[in-house]
């Protein structure tokens, strides 16, 4: 493919960065390795395709093969979609959690080290804690989430004779609110613990880099004018006016082999 000059902001910022830090390259002992990043990234951007041009067949490019389940069953996924949408609903600002793919994000996170509390201290014994001491259950995040999602359905069926996803939005809010306020028994686990996990996962699914499956097309960032992954704000940091820029994700930063 022929090299085409691109006007993407990232190239601009890298050029600026080179200008300001150019003298730092060289010397006997260089603290921050700078040559490497600039060289490789420039090369990457230079050979990049123009928007709209893709190497893969068009029919396949619309599909996101990453949108499939790693942990949830289908019901749990649907409940997560519906519940996260109530936590962060679509409105005049833009898409809600559902359209942003937060439920896929949550599913993928539950299949990851985070869902299994891999980097938490999970050794016994487990005692009842004071609020100031934080989470003290042997139950892992993925277990808690699955238990809570199933309970959302049971509770909805008891109260409204319908499963959670079939409820009207106001009814869904009422159910979630009952969980938030610990009005529901979750096998002894405070329902609010489940609710706050779902709540924080939803926000993460809305705003984490799209590489994790949520924040689809960076639409979460665009709503709040968050610029995402930019190389440098050296020239903008002092400016009085508010600067809106097209966000960039870590995908834009990757040098493909």
């Amino acid at each position: 493919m022929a090299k085409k000059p691109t006007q993407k902001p990232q190239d601009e910022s890298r050029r600026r960065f080179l200008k300001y830090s150019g003298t730092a390259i060289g010397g006997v002992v260089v603290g921050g390795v700078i040559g490497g990043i600039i060289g490789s990234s420039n090369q990457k951007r230079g050979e990049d395709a123009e928007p709209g041009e893709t190497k893969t067949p068009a029919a396949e490019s619309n599909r996101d093969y990453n949108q499939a389940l790693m942990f949830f069953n289908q019901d749990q996924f649907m409940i997560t979609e519906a519940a996260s949408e109530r936590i962060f609903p679509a409105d005049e600002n833009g898409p809600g959690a559902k359209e942003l793919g937060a439920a896929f994000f949550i599913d993928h996170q539950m299949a990851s080290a985070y869902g299994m509390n891999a980097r938490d201290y999970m050794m016994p014994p487990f005692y009842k804690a004071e609020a100031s001491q934080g989470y003290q259950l042997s139950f892992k995040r993925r277990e808690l989430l699955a238990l809570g999602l199933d309970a959302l359905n049971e509770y909805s069926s008891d109260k409204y004779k319908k499963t959670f996803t079939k409820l009207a939005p106001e009814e869904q809010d009422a159910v979630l609110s009952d969980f938030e306020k610990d009005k529901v028994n979750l096998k002894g686990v405070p329902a609010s613990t489940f609710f706050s996990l779902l709540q924080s996962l939803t926000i993460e699914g809305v705003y984490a880099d799209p590489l994790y499956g949520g924040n689809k097309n960076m639409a979460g960032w665009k709503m709040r004018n968050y610029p995402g992954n930019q190389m440098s704000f050296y020239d903008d940091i002092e400016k009085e006016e508010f600067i809106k820029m097209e966000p960039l994700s870590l995908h834009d930063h990757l040098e493909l082999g």
Partner: protein
Amino acid sequence: MATKLPKASVVIVGMGWVGGILAAELTKAGHTVVGLERGKSRATQDYYHVHDELRYASRYELMQDLSKETITFRNTEKMKALPMRSYGSFLLGDGLGGAGVHWNGQYYRFLPYDFEIYSKTVERYGKNKIPKDMTIRDWGITYDQLEPYFVKYEQMAGISGDKTLPPNIGAMSVPFSTGPMKKTPGMKIFEESATKLGYHPYIIPSANLSDNYTNPDGIERASCQYCGYCERFGCEYGAKADPVVTVFPVALKTGKLDLRTHANVTEIMHDGKKASGVRYVNTPTGEEFIQPADVVILAGYVFSNVRLLLTSKLGKPYDPKTDTGAIGRNYAYQVNGASTSAFYEDREFNLAMGAGALGSNIDDFNGDNFDHSDLKFLHGANIRFTQTGLRPIQYQPVPLGTPTWGKDFKQASIHNANRVLAVSGQGASMPNRYHYLDLDPEYKDAFGMPLIRMTFDFEEQDVELVKFIAQKTKEIADGMGATKTEMHDTIRQYNIVPYQSTHNTGGTIMGDDPKTSVVNNYLQMWDAENVFVCGASNFAHNSGYNPTATVGALAYRTAEGIEKYLQKGGSLV
């Protein structure tokens, strides 16, 4: 059976800021140093994909793996201590560079008052001013004695700051290496309001370089790009002073540093009077080694320093009931919670942009820079506006009374994402007889060693400090031309869940009295002359500032002490 290795002149436990500074200074002086670090190696190349809030800020990529080791916590002795199972209140360093990789770089020399807090309080207000269980004491060193060592750290790290500073903070014999950081609109507004009120604002001294800089060791580094991914992240430009891009290249270049990663030290070997070396586990295999040395340095941060002394039974453990012993005494923290948010309906700010140490501040209500005669607390807080780069997962600014989820939450958090400037206080933390560290009787780490147990709470002192400082933040914020301001002035029980700051202090405090302090003013242990313990664990209280300037200065002083000791032996004081 542990394998015994050939003797080194010095062995250092922990390769963060303290370990790195000591390794560089001692190897430059010609000594052979073995550096043991339980975590992995690190390099700037690791951070090319670092602008990832989820991975680094929310999932703590660079921090200690709590599944292997944590601490236990209780507010008072009446409670049962339970493990900190997930991160919250503070974040522990791990791997080459320690927390020095993911710190902000806000740089403050402690105040002259801090080092003589007891004497100066008694002198100005009388003994009765000090509440019954408040165990403030002089540090056994003065600001003037420590001044040359601050300079050393500043030259090495490349601290950026104003040429002239207000008269209410410690005088500097040498100005900062590079000029101040750039000034954002928010910083200007803060400074204007503070000046109008008669206060003395200045730009926060920064270990994020304002300009390219070559330090006395010949290390060249580039200027900060204000990338907004600094606190909790590594710097992909090497612009943030971090041990990995400053002191380690220097130590390694001498050929005298034998740096061993994945080496977790589990014991100080000693005969009660002197140490002979340390025992460590090579974590990939579980194999044990004994590293003999003439000098043993503990540089593993507050919790590790205290824990190793206690598990190795070196020195006298502190007992709050009898108020005797020293190890674990005077644990202190940081008192945050006083702040005012200024909301602007008519404009937005570029708050995603920022740097870890970017901001402006005043010290008019820090230390003893104001009269405490009619106040129910001692010390105070640095009051600041910072622009560290606000990221969307962890920053959800909403006015008080907004629901925490749903339509109104979404609307408010998006509307205000770039419309709030926060003025906040970083409060000093006074020690208390019943705030201390000891070994947990029940919980163990991955090697079967007891975890450290923290007993800590906020006291009346802290409640009053926050109430007072909050009023000052409001006064400043009210003069910043906002549509409305909201003050936060209440602090309750200490809670380990929300992040506050990684400014844990005390436990191996320095002082003049071998009965109540662990080390003398060369950070040499009273009870074992060839053991040096260095870090914020030496602080007898915590100031209204971030700790690392003072930690760094103490490390340079320790290096000098160890050199003297290696020549002459014996007590250095």
